[in-house]
């Protein structure tokens, strides 16, 4: 009897897990950009073409030198989030060269997590606006369908 109960609960658990997995699919996109003395504005577009239950942005920007502004816009053009990081320091390696991906613990960092339930269909835009900036940025988006 105990064995029967164990098997039944195992089957139910497996069925439940599989059905849950079948119902939701997660799409993850990730962009990792390094920039050096850059003032070039870049836009990363996430196109939501069909009904999505959840859209999450995780953006992390570390700046060693210069200024960076990161803005998130919904398809209607409304700003849904932003942050800016400014670093006036300029630290060089021993040979005088600024290493792009060296540890930027001494720099400045900004991070934003933005989750939207049933996001508006269309193009969500992450605008990355550097001003003579050196550092790196990671933009991750999750879509749960």
């Amino acid at each position, binding site marked *: 009897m105990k064995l029967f109960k164990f098997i039944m609960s195992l089957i139910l658990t497996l069925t439940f897990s599989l059905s849950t997995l079948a119902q939701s699919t997660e799409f993850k996109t990730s962009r990792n950009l390094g920039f050096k003395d850059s003032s070039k504005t870049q836009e990363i577009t996430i196109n939501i073409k069909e009904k999505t239950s959840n859209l999450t942005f995780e953006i992390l920007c*570390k700046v060693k030198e210069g200024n960076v502004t990161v803005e998130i816009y919904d398809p209607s053009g*409304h*700003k849904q*989030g*932003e*942050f*800016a*990081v*400014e*670093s*006036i*320091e300029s630290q060089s390696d021993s040979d005088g060269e600024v290493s792009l991906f060296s540890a*930027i*613990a*001494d*720099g*400045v*960092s*900004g*991070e*934003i*997590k*933005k*989750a*939207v*339930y*049933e*996001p*508006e269909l269309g193009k969500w835009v992450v605008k990355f606006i550097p001003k003579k900036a050196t550092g790196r940025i990671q933009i991750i988006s999750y879509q749960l369908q």
Partner: protein
Amino acid sequence: MKQTNLFFSINVKRYFLLIILIYFNIYTHGQTSNNNTQIEGHIKLDSIWNKKLYLSHISDFSKMYTMSRSMIIAESKVDSLGFFKFRTDFLPIENNLYRIHVSKKGSSEASIIIGGKDENHFFLIANKSSEIKILNDSKIFNNVTFIRDEKNKILSEIDDIVRLIDSTNFNSTKIKSDFVSNAFNEQLRQIADTCSYPLVSLYALHKSKFEQDIKNNTQFYQDFLDKQQNVNSVYFQNFKNKVPARKTLSGKNSYIVLISFIAFGLGFLLNTLLNRKKREKNNPIKTLSIQERKVYRLLKAGKSNKEISEELNIGVSTVKSHVSNIYSKLSVKSRKEAINFPL
């Protein structure tokens, strides 16, 4: 069962004692340092955070989410019991917006995290003579309570409303979250409208995403600025630049009004002249020549042709010719009709 109850009861007592101790400490600190104005409090930091807090000056609301070392004006260690304090005697006399943040172990001390359970900052308003007590026993860093300081209590209420908006956005459909967001933003505008602390009002407006509302609700923001016109602050100056000015008769607009007036005047004049000409055309008397009018005036006075010729010093035949013309122009057939002709 009894053992569980006893264990539970001991834990509750311990927790209660800890809270009492924290409050006691905060108040004691406040009483002993009456002349030493400061921002102080107790905060619970778990192992992911560095035991140091940073105070940044936010010179403009557009810089609320800007992180720069140049904005950090003070730092305070968080002691083993969780107490911290910043002096305020070097701050400006006027209320200004400040941000307190903490950094994660291993990451830059100048770091800002927005959103999620790791949000690492909160805002407050302070001045040179501020005595602000802060308490946070939650695991979420920015979930703070301000004790005694009224303006920061309102600031905290505003943050609570914004958290509600964010959680609705996260848990509800777009239509519902739009509906709820509009209602809460309206509530924030009401706080801005009624709050007696100008900087807190402005904080509420910035949290209500006024940029999206300003086009459709311009009058509200103009009225708000009128109400706060005596407030001399950079924060308000910057906000004022974002609100469309009331329409006045100046510059380009005054030219348009002036040209409209001139056009109206010219139109009126032209119309009057045309009407006069029309009236003249319709009145046959106006068609008489000067000499004929003189003859007609005497004729109307009942004078004979001879009397008219003597008075005007012209021949009787000339008078007869004028009279004939007058009959013709007035479309009358007799002297009687001419005399009774309506002027």
